[in-house]
């Protein structure tokens, strides 16, 4: 039970709906006859309301696939397995002795991620598994380019793949541990998909020499300019990849 005049704590508890029903009525009656105090309470209520409105937008961020609990669980499992494997490898190496022990150490240290793994990961998630809706859906490069330019300044232009029969159809914003990224998906008449991926080179400014690698059924062509890293991901060895090779030089 609160006492009157109300303490400041009671006023806040009132604002936060943490008073009992009878206390609330008691306080409301008191406030109705004390306009100055009522105004102060109202100002606090208004602040709270405005804060709710202002922070409402922050609930609508583009989805970050790195935060998916299922993926995190898998990653944790993989990490602990890798640690176990490293430990086992070191143990064996110690048994064999000096020089080879050093080699084993090198081997365990060399497991740094391969270039543009995130681009491949994004392709698998969005182009193959089709999880989550796109942030932008368009036909053609124009609108897509404008959208991309809002987030990436002085980035390379989107490749024009019309000759190979591909059109940009959807764009997604992602965040990665290297910084914000975007993936633009191209599609042809037959529903084949190719992605263009862009992100900053990260805090260590890790720029890539032009190259390509295949990872499972996918191929990634990657390169950098002075501001960003890029990758094109396509199904490897397919007629699509071949058509792309013929019409396009990355």
């Amino acid at each position, binding site marked *: 039970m609160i006492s009157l005049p109300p303490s400041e*704590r009671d006023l*806040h508890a009132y604002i936060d709906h943490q008073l009992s029903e009878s206390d609330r009525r008691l306080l409301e009656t008191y406030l109705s006859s004390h306009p100055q105090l009522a105004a102060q309470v109202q100002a*606090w209520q208004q602040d709270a309301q405005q*804060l709710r409105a202002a922070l409402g937008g922050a609930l609508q961020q583009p989805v*970050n696939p790195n935060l998916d609990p299922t993926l995190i669980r898998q990653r*944790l499992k993989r990490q602990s397995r890798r640690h176990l494997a490293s430990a086992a490898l070191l143990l064996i190496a110690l048994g064999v002795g000096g020089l080879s022990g050093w080699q084993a150490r090198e081997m365990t240290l060399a497991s740094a991620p391969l270039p543009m793994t995130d681009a491949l990961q994004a392709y698998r998630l969005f182009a193959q598994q089709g999880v989550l809706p796109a942030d932008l859906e368009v036909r053609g490069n124009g609108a897509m380019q404008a959208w991309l330019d809002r987030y990436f300044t002085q980035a390379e232009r989107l490749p024009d793949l019309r000759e190979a029969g591909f059109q940009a159809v959807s764009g997604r914003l992602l965040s990665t541990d290297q*910084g914000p990224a975007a993936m633009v998906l191209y599609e042809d008449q037959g529903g084949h998909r190719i992605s263009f991926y862009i992100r900053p080179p990260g*805090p260590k400014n890790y720029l890539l020499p032009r190259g390509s690698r295949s990872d499972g059924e996918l191929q990634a062509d990657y390169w950098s300019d002075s501001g960003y890293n890029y990758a094109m991901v396509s199904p490897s060895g397919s007629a699509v990849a071949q058509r792309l090779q013929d019409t396009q030089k990355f």
Partner: protein
Amino acid sequence: MNDIDEQLREIIPRLRRFALSLSRQPSSADDLVQASLERALSSWGEKRPEGDLRAWLFAILYRQFLDAHRRSRRYARMLEFFTGRDDAQPSVERSVVAQSTLEAFDRLPAEQRALLLWVSVEGLSYKEVATILDVPTGTVMSRLSRARQALRQLSDGEITSPSLRILK
């Protein structure tokens, strides 16, 4: 497992918002959320208390934030962030007014931001907040009162709310 993941997925946007209000940068905010989820998932069985999952995750995230902040100033220069946080505002006139409350909010110290978000925006009870901060409920109330006054002071003059006067 799937059931838990489903619950987590619903809370993640709230965690991201909280992290964003603490770190003020989308990319480091997401790092914070990721680290917190990893922490939560790897200590699930032993630590997870009965009660509100959201409050427990807020507590983990807040502690991670403080730790990271103390450990190094790396956070300050970590990763550039998106050039504009322009999208998704509810409506024009509302956001004009709210924008300045937001600016005032952004100038408050981290603990006051956390308090106001938990209580005013997320609607946690004083008791839940007391558990998160590991202080008595009375302390939560007096800190909250200070936070509200600070916010009011900072946004005073910026907000032109219609003032009612009783005319005799």
